[in-house]
């Protein structure tokens, strides 16, 4: 498979390291994929721990109840966990998959997950349930295999009774096993493990099936421990809407809330994009497209990652220099083995051209003619790029700490927004940054100190050595703030002005005093704190200016940045109707023939038949008379062919035109614009509205 894909790869770009590129791409994706899985796991850990705790509790209750006869007789409540997962349905599968894995590893081998589409009736549900349970049994105990196969072959009647019988036999067997074996199984699983049934999409189940299942199993709850887990996409209310009180009273429901998809995305972005761990980067527009698909379309982290994957593939496929998109050391090695062709590719990069132009002329010549010199320079440039990224992310996080404390978040609340703003253009030239800095100059001391401490932590934890000065500087600031506190001098001016403010009552005077205050502040010598604050803000500003330069300005950024947001959008978020409409309305978009050029809303009469027929049908109401349509069509077509219109005016419409018309109309029918109508003979009905 791998080989085949490589061949495919080579088919297009030869001598540009396509094989290596493919391998790099695969490796990178593998790393990223495992990273995402790890993230998912970590994020779900809390939830799963809670669930397991719940299971344990309900389980132990059941166990104790077994001994107490009274309780046993009375309660037939099934412990149920309602798991609210949010609307991002596409992500649920992964959550459930890891959930059942975790449960199987830690709690019980008997985990069954059911989907609504597999269970149209209670019979199917039980069948699925039994089937999956039998399979689990095989997994737990391979010696049991034969018997199990026998059972499933016999297709015993799937009923709760047989289920409880099965459970009894299974638990007995494990009890009677050799102690060594028992220990291994009990170390992982609990004594008489519960049967956990997961309803993946509770909302889609038919009410009847759910009700029946719950009622039936509540009858048998005493015979084997059963726990239900409902996966809910909307709100917990749905349980009560789906189940009548008589049924829901049989459940002992506890609610669990999964992590919100927004937090999930934030973590994914933080771990995948805002790091130097992976060499591949997304440009601002691409990231914007992916985030927008997430926010406006599906809230699905899975889809976000899919888009990320697609951009990796696209990047490595279309950019020959992406071969250098790997870890720095490896990339430096690869630079040495670049072909002449690839060197030319480097020279044609816009960012590299900019770089060359900024050099002295001898160096320019050398760069453009000598491959070996170019390779040397490329290595240093790649290193620069790497360092740029290291600094960038650290300073970005630092700036984010500052901006999140501001009212109204001029630079965005999430770090991804800030990231986008910095990636695209020089952030310090934007108005938002301007206002953010203004607001920073008004921060209170406590806040400022807290923020500075956080920043210092960020810088310390960053790997970049070049920030030691910065850390020192920050610590110095912190120390000075500390000193300020000790020598806290009475700020008489402000106090007095405060008093003044309290005195004034009417608006006019207030305004006047405020203005005067402002005036005085401007002229007045600043307090020590204010001066220090200015200093801090200026320092941050200088950091931003030196480290948060837009990525596009970096030399060789094309190697690691995927830039064509357009392709991504086309492939992930296509608009087939618009494409169809454009093709029909304005064929010139696709067929670059001068005769097809036309004004907006008009169509040339030499256009393909289907376009003409489409255009004509737009003029009609709900029903279209085929004869009129045919005549109109032949009018247009004959006019193009230059035949005498009078000749056509006779009843004889050319057969060929007739045939073409038939084809065009059937095509429109296939496309879903019209359908045959029986309302009137020889009429078709329009299925769309408007369209001029």
């Amino acid at each position, binding site marked *: *498979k791998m080989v085949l*894909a490589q061949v*495919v790869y080579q*088919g*297009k770009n030869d001598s540009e390291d396509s094989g290596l590129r493919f391998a790099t791409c695969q490796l990178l994706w593998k790393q990223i994929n495992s990273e995402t899985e790890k993230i998912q796991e970590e994020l779900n850990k809390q939830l799963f721990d809670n669930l397991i705790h719940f299971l344990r509790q309900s389980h132990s209750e059941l166990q104790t109840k077994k001994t107490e006869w009274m309780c046993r007789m009375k309660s037939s409540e099934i412990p149920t966990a309602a798991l609210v997962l949010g609307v991002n349905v*596409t992500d649920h599968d992964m959550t459930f998959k890891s959930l059942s894995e975790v449960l199987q590893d830690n709690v019980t081998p008997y985990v069954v997950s059911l989907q609504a*589409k*597999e269970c149209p009736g209670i019979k199917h549900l039980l069948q699925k349930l039994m089937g999956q349970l039998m399979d689990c049994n095989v997994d737990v105990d391979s010696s049991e295999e034969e018997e199990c196969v026998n059972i499933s072959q016999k297709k015993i009647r799937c009923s709760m009774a047989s289920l409880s019988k099965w459970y009894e036999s299974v638990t007995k067997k494990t009890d009677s096993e050799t102690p060594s074996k028992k220990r291994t199984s009990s170390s992982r699983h609990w004594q008489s493990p519960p049967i956990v049934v997961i309803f993946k999409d509770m909302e889609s189940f038919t009410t009847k099936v759910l009700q029946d299942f719950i009622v039936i199993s509540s009858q048998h709850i005493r015979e084997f421990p059963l726990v239900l887990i409902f996966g809910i996409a909307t709100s917990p209310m749905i349980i009560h809407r789906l189940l009548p009180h008589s049924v829901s009273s049989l459940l002992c429901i506890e609610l669990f809330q999964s992590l919100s998809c927004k937090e999930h995305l934030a973590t994914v972005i933080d771990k995948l994009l805002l790091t130097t761990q992976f060499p591949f980067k997304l440009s601002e*527009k691409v990231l914007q497209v992916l985030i927008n698909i997430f926010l*406006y379309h599906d809230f699905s982290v899975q889809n976000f990652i899919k888009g990320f*994957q697609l951009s990796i593939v696209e990047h490595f496929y279309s950019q020959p220099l992406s071969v250098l998109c790997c870890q720095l050391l490896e990339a430096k090695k690869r630079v040495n083995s670049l072909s002449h062709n690839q060197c030319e590719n480097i020279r044609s990069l816009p960012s590299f051209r900019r770089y060359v132009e900024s050099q002295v002329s001898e160096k320019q010549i050398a760069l453009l003619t000598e491959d070996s010199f170019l390779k040397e320079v490329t290595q240093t440039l790649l290193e620069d790029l790497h360092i740029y990224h290291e600094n960038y992310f650290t300073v970005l996080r630092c700036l984010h700490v500052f901006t999140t404390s501001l009212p109204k978040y001029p630079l965005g609340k999430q770090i991804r927004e800030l990231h986008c703003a910095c990636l695209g253009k020089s952030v310090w030239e934007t108005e938002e940054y301007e206002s953010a800095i203004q607001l920073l100059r008004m921060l209170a001391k406590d806040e400022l100190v807290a923020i500075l401490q956080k920043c210092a932590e960020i810088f310390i934890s960053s790997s970049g050595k070049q920030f030691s000065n910065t850390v020192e500087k920050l610590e110095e600031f912190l120390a000075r703030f500390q000193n300020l506190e000790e020598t806290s001098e009475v700020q008489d001016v402000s106090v007095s002005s405060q008093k003044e403010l309290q005195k004034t009552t009417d608006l006019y005077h207030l305004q006047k005093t405020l203005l005067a205050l402002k005036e005085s502040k401007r002229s007045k010598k600043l307090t020590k704190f204010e001066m220090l604050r200015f200093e801090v803000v200026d320092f941050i500003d200088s950091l931003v200016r030196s480290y948060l330069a837009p990525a596009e300005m970096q030399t060789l950024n094309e190697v690691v940045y995927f830039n064509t947001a357009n392709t991504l*959008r*086309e492939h992930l978020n296509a608009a*087939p*109707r*618009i*494409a169809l409409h*454009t093709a029909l*309305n304005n*064929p010139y*978009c*696709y*067929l670059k*023939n001068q*005769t097809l050029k*036309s004004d907006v809303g*008009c169509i*040339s*009469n*030499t256009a393909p038949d*289907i376009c003409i027929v489409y255009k*004509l049908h737009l003029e*009609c*109401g709900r*029903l279209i008379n*085929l*004869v*009129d349509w045919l*005549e*109109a069509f032949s*009018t*247009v077509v004959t006019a*193009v062919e230059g035949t005498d*219109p009078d000749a056509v*005016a*006779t009843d004889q419409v050319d057969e060929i035109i007739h*045939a073409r018309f038939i*084809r065009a*109309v*059937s*095509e429109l029918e*296939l*496309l879903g614009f019209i359908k*045959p109508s029986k*309302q*009137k003979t*020889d009429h078709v009905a329009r299925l769309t*509205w408007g*369209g*001029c």
Partner: protein
Amino acid sequence: MSQLELKRNKALEARFVADEDVLKHISDNGGVKVRKDRAQLELNIKRFVKKLENISDDDEAQEILEEQNYVAVLGACAEDSLKNGSSAGGGEIYSFQTPKRSGKMAELASELAQTPGKNVTFESSQYPEKPASTPKSSKKYSASNKAELKSKKNEFVSTTPYRLRKRLTAPSLRSDSESDYSASCSEEEEEDKDHKETSDVILDQKTPSKTRAAPASKKTPAKKLKEEMTSNLVEEYFEAHSSSKVRTSDRTLQKLQKRKLDQQTLLVLLNKAPPAFTAELKELNQQHESLFSKWMLQLHLGFSIVLYGLGSKRDLLEKFRTSLLQDSVHLVVNGFFPSITVRSILNSITEEVLDHMGTFRSPLDQLDLIMKRFKEDSSLELYLLIHNLDSKMLRGDKSQQILAQLASLPNIHLIASIDHINAPLMWDQAKQSLYNWLWYETTTFSPYLEETSYENSLLVQQSGSLALSSLTHVLHSLTPNARGIFRLLARYHLENKDNPSYPGLSFQDFYQRCREAFLVNSELTLRAQLTEFRDHKLIRTKRGTDGVEYLLIPVDNGTLTDFLEKEDEDI
């Protein structure tokens, strides 16, 4: 006059009308109906609407700006607006429109015909007469003065798109084809005509109030206009859909004395038609073909590929298959084939790819087996090419679910094409994530020859060659008695072909006849036979109003006649 006033108050919108206007109306049209006022109003409103579409007042500009913002937010960068034509906003494409009058198509046709390859601004001199749309002389012509009225009416038909508007200033269009227009429902016809007349009359006399109204509308504040527009659009939509009557001409293809073409002659004729834009089409195709290796790569990485855009994508996929998939296991599904089912797709996978002999209780079981086998054996690999994933047979929810699950397997690579405008609605989030689509726009402009050939288009003579052959095939496998039974029914069916209220042959009647012909000896045997027929779709049963079961043959009479003739020859 007081009566008239009263009438207006009842039936129409309350509106202030100057006395002199009223007087004028009355003196002008004598006893004609007063409904004209309403008609006028409607027309005016429609005009407002139209105008609004053209005038870019502040509000609209603002809206457009907002829309652009949204588009920009979605990352629709400037460079793609050229390629994708995404400049066409949704509103522009599928806005609600006022129902159009029937003459429009012919008019547009003549307009298009007049433009020699390029668009030319129209002048009245360029407008000699409507060429081909004039019907034959045998058609009854309306009185000349009426025709004139109609031409004037055209001036005021506000539903005309603005690009047609300029043309409408051309004097005296001959729109006599309207004379044989009627509603689709005969009982409403009278009223309809009524209405037409009134409107004619109103339009005939340009009452001053009307001419005043038009410019006034321009001055109305934009906001007010907008409100009016939205409410009116809604009203118009429901107005257009509330009544079942639609005015279109009564002409039928039969009157054209044109023989219906069958599929074969159609093909022959189409082959004669000169191909257009071959160079451009080739270029388009080459663009798409350059993507082949990319598709291959992406298929291997677990994506599925869906092709959309105007034009048949069959050849393209075929080419993809022949150039890249020759050495690998692949399955081509012609979704447009009318008898394709998911089951047959699954069957060919299990039988031909997995070499599994055996039957399955349900497609779900079959799917389970396939998924299991493919998961177990990672060396198994299958390319699934589906032409028209959105065809009638495959678009069902269950079919899509099964196909999506197939596509989600890492070693099944799906590449499919869709054509229907609403095809994406087949998939919800869950299915989409199973499919893991990558969309590729492949507009080819090539004709949908194969795809439409199975369709029962209105225009193509349902030659029924397919139906006929299936008829004969099925019947040949039956006993002579069974054939006799069917012949009996067919004869009866043909005897009654001219009877429009023929409900079918009642079961009891049929039984009697069969007994008399010594074809069956009990009701049970006949029932058994009929079940067989029904399974092969040779007959249909229908319950009449009296609860009696009627039998029908859902094959057209021509085919049936052919069939009987053939049968008679055989015997």
